[in-house]
């Protein structure tokens, strides 16, 4: 989230789209309830189904799954046409006035620089025009035809109400009502918040959908203000922590990135990432990349990382390709990966295309499962009848199960969607032989290290030289690790302005990332967490929920990254004189000498408001980008592409351009493209989702959850049920080109038949929570049905839009 949970109570309009906040976050949802009860806020839900969120909403509009860019693009067009934008904000805090290069082009669904062979773009033309001074050329009057403003208007002029009705299936009047309600927050006195989740991320165009939502918020001046923001409601406890610590295959902690194979030169590696300002006097905070990187290397390799060896740069793996989850299972499928450690993860259930995964796991030599529960993955080799029809005699994989602790049996911090690191304490001892993940990983490392020391290996240095300063090397404590992430001074740190003054003694915890250096004198395992365990101690453990200003800013409850800033980009909540746009919900303001207020300023604390420094301090432009430049795989402006399993067979925006039907820049493996289904055999559009009563594949092991939602079902609209003669409560078989499931049919009014491109379109809802182990009634894994293709930027699989057939079982 760019804002946070409590801040939602400040909203005047709440849009839930690409998510189902009441269903998946019933506790966090109370802040929406608060906004409605005490702020007269209006709640809008846009979703393929009338969900639990819709049941308490003021307005609901249906939409075909996967067409959110068309809808949101239409909102952008509406706002620009009606001029319902926050002018001062858009003019000063975004790149609307920037002039784009002449060779940038867009035609028939494709941008300039496309290589159809490689399914990727040469993005050189996706850039601004530079002046002689090297800075970006701008036209503040916005008249120049290649200003981002003019290009944006042109780009979304095709997203008419008629197109939304045709392609999304959303009735025109409902679409316009949503536009009106959002437009009501264009002024400085009202704010809208967008709450989204996996309904936006789990598409092959997911990242771009989210970007389109952000663009709507920027036009309305809703980013960086109380009650506004682009708020991702994360899908698991501490998934925010997972991404923060860089557990994605191409990341390092703190959203630093691993080098690619081509990046053998350390100086170049840093230079590319340390983005210099594109306009005068911008913070472009990533220009400090070197400090974050070197501090990370010191945290990992300690004394072995020196200036002479480029801070152990050679110890870092260099990526030849992405090693995300989809790639990994593809490698297993090809027999190129023969061992797998599966930690706190149930991929047979949670990854797409069960049949492909089964084949992959069956060809492994060994599989290690670290989990507190027995999972479908740990039991993949067992026959469970129709639910898992395998022949154990044919499977040679050796499976090891290492029982781990649960959250209540451990101490540590969980990071919530609002970026708050909240420390929690151990509630009870773990049962039997269960050990914490830390202990298991530490022991694995320690034994491997000894083996490498004794026997050598291809390149054991990165492993044997890891700094391992923990009191008990086989079981580091959460506190030791937290302190390491936050960071400390390795040597005495002197004040750069007065070298005789020592600002931090060697060994002391650092107070914030401003103290990080690139000369090896600091160590921090995750720069964005720097300060979470500072000189004063564990700030994540604080529990003072005082809200002195009433705007929901509880700065002394836990600790948020970065630097305890609760609302990101909060400089944008003030005008060029440093006065809050909305004095009733002020976050920060300028007092003539410094910024301060209800929040920690997300800005240089003593920088005058009219000196030209922009609020978006991580961007080299200093302003927010409507034109993403080379930042996204598909293009600088979001464009609609159909899901890979499209019910139409063409892109309604470019019916003749075959290459632009589905995401032209998304990676698809050959076999998976072949496994896609077509609408002639699979005429209905399916989407998967969660229910409040369950969490993924865990809670089917819990009796209470199983009691309140015992058995697998699918949701079918009354229209489709009538057409197929399916009674409510009858068993049905739902199949895709990859397999089938059988489930009870819930025939519902809440999924209406849409009219798309003049024809009736039926959507089928498939909750995910069942499998073949647990105390709930046994069921089929929903991912038997889903396609093996991911988002072009994040590789998140397209779980939310695919084609199925439905018949009586």
């Amino acid at each position, binding site marked *: 989230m760019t804002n946070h949970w409590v801040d939602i109570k400040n909203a005047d309009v709440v849009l839930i789209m690409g998510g189902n906040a*009441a269903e998946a976050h019933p506790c966090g949802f*109370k802040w929406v309830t608060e906004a409605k009860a005490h702020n007269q806020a209006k709640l809008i839900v846009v979703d393929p189904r009338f969900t639990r969120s819709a049941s*308490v909403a003021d307005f609901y509009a249906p939409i075909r799954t996967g067409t959110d860019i068309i809808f949101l693009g239409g909102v952008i067009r509406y706002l620009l046409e009606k001029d319902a934008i926050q002018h001062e904000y858009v003019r000063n805090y975004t790149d609307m006035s920037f002039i784009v290069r002449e060779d940038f082009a867009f035609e028939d669904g494709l941008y300039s620089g496309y290589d159809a062979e490689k399914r990727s773009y040469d993005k050189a033309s996706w850039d601004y025009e530079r002046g002689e001074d090297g800075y970006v050329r701008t036209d503040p009057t916005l008249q120049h035809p290649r200003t981002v403003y003019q290009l944006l208007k042109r780009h979304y002029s095709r997203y008419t109400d008629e197109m939304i009705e045709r392609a999304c299936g959303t009735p025109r009047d409902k679409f316009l009502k949503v536009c009106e309600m959002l437009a009501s927050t264009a002024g400085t006195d009202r704010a809208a918040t967008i709450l989204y989740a996996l309904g936006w991320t789990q598409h092959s165009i997911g990242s771009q959908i989210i970007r389109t939502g952000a663009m709507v918020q920027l036009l309305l001046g809703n980013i960086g203000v109380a009650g506004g923001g682009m708020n991702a409601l994360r899908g698991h406890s501490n998934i925010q922590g997972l991404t923060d610590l860089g557990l994605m295959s191409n990341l390092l902690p703190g959203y630093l990135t691993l080098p690619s194979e081509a990046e053998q030169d350390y100086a170049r590696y840093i230079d590319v990432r340390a983005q210099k300002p594109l306009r005068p006097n911008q913070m472009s905070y990533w220009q400090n990349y070197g400090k974050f990187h070197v501090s990370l290397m010191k945290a990992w390799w300690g004394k072995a990382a020196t200036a002479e060896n480029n801070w152990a740069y050679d110890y870092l793996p260099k990526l030849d390709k992405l090693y995300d989850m989809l790639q990994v299972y593809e490698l297993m499928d090809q027999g190129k990966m023969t061992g797998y450690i599966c930690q706190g993860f149930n991929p047979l259930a949670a990854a797409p295309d069960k049949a492909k995964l089964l084949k992959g796991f069956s060809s492994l030599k060994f599989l290690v499962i670290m989990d507190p529960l027995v999972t479908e993955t740990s039991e993949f080799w067992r026959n469970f009848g129709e639910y898992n029809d395998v022949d154990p005699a044919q499977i040679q994989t050796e499976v090891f199960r290492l029982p781990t602790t649960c959250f209540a049996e451990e101490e540590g911090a969980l990071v919530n969607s609002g970026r708050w690191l909240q420390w929690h304490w151990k509630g009870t001892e773990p049962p039997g032989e269960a050990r914490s993940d830390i202990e298991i990983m530490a022991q694995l490392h320690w034994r491997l290290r000894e083996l490498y020391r004794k026997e050598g290996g291809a390149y054991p240095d990165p492993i044997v030289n890891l700094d391992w300063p923990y009191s008990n090397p086989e079981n580091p404590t959460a506190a030791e690790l937290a302190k390491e992430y936050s960071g400390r001074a390795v040597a005495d740190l002197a004040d750069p302005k007065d070298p005789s003054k020592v600002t931090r003694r060697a060994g002391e915890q650092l107070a914030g990332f401003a103290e990080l250096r690139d000369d090896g004198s600091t160590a921090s395992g995750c720069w964005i967490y720097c300060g979470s365990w500072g000189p004063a101690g564990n700030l994540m453990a604080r529990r003072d929920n005082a809200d002195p200003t009433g705007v929901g800013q509880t700065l002394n409850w836990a600790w948020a990254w970065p630097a305890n800033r609760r609302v990101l980009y909060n400089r944008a909540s003030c005008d060029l004189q440093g006065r809050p746009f909305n004095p009733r919900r002020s976050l920060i303001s300028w007092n003539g000498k410094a910024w301060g207020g209800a929040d920690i300023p997300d800005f240089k604390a003593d920088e005058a408001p009219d000196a030209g420094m922009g609020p978006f301090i991580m961007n080299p432009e200093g302003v927010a980008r409507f034109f993403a430049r080379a930042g996204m795989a598909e293009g600088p402006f979001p464009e609609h592409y159909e899901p890979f399993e499209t019910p139409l067979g063409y892109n309604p925006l470019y019916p003749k351009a075959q290459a632009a039907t589905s995401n032209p820049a998304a990676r698809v493996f050959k076999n998976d493209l072949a496994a896609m289904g077509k609408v002639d055999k699979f005429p209905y559009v399916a989407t998967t989702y969660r229910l409040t009563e369950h969490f993924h594949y865990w809670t089917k092991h819990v009796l209470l*959850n199983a009691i309140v939602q*015992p058995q697998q079902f699918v949701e079918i609209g009354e229209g489709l049920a009538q057409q197929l003669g399916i009674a*409510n409560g009858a068993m049905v078989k739902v199949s895709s080109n990859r397999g089938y499931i059988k489930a009870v*049919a819930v025939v519902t*009014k809440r999924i209406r038949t849409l009219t798309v491109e003049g024809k009736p379109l039926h959507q089928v809802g498939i909750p995910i929570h069942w499998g073949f182990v647990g105390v709930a*009634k046994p069921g089929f894994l929903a991912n038997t049905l889903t396609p093996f293709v991911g988002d072009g930027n994040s590789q998140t699989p397209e779980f939310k839009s695919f084609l199925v057939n439905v018949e009586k079982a």
Partner: protein
Amino acid sequence: MSMQSLDIKRRSATTTPPPGVREPVVAGGVAKLIDVSKCIGCKACQTACMEWNDLRDEVGHAVGVYDNPADLTENSWTVMRFSELENEQGDLEWLIRKDGCMHCEDPGCLKACPSPGAIVQYTNGIVDFHEENCIGCGYCITGCPFNVPRISKKDHKAYKCTLCSDRVAVGQEPACVKTCPTGAIVFGTKEDMTQHAAERIDDLKSRGYENAGLYDPQGVGGTHVMYVLHHADRPGLYHGLPQDPQISPMVAFWKGLAKPLGVAAMALTALAGFFHYVRVGPNEVDEEDERKAEEEMRHD
């Protein structure tokens, strides 16, 4: 026994009056207010109820609705009822009501119950079952206008929501109230809850629900579990919530008028018998009859 946290106001099948020396000032007693317009149907309340009361229901089957279990049972003292509706504007509504005991001010279950002390009503309005006195006859179900109590197959006794009388007795809110994540369930004095409901109803009206209102049916003397409904004019939309619930006239008669009538019938019969004995006397055989009977016998 009268010096306990919750005083008894009424006791099933008992004619002796309860102790009445204490006068707790409770502004209409306690009340649980369920704002159906805020409820997201998450079933946290069902789960909390099972956890607090150490109950575990069966893992049942999906029957085509989100209601699970599909009905109240001896182990599920509250269930969410989901009703789908397409309204006059052609828009969808999903009405989700937390079903359970309404804790009537004039409880039909207590009236119908033949077992002394199996059902009690406290001065604060909570209607509680004391199962050690329950004979499992099921009359409480007949007496309940809302079809709430359920007989256990395990011990043949009746069970229902207790409004967490054990928690309320020590000053805590019921488990469902504590756990509700959106604050759709609130608890306090009936006066306060009615006031809070009025504010909620104003808010609903401002959002276009013209017939929003409070469900506090007077046919049972009002209830200590009340609903804020979007459509208070049509409670039947909420999975058959009765429009104007009253204690069945059969029960009212059987436990009401039938008793004095029955006693009167017995007393009158006794009186009539007495008068007959006094005036008419027993059917005795006198000397005249004896003589005639002997004569008849000699002539045969």
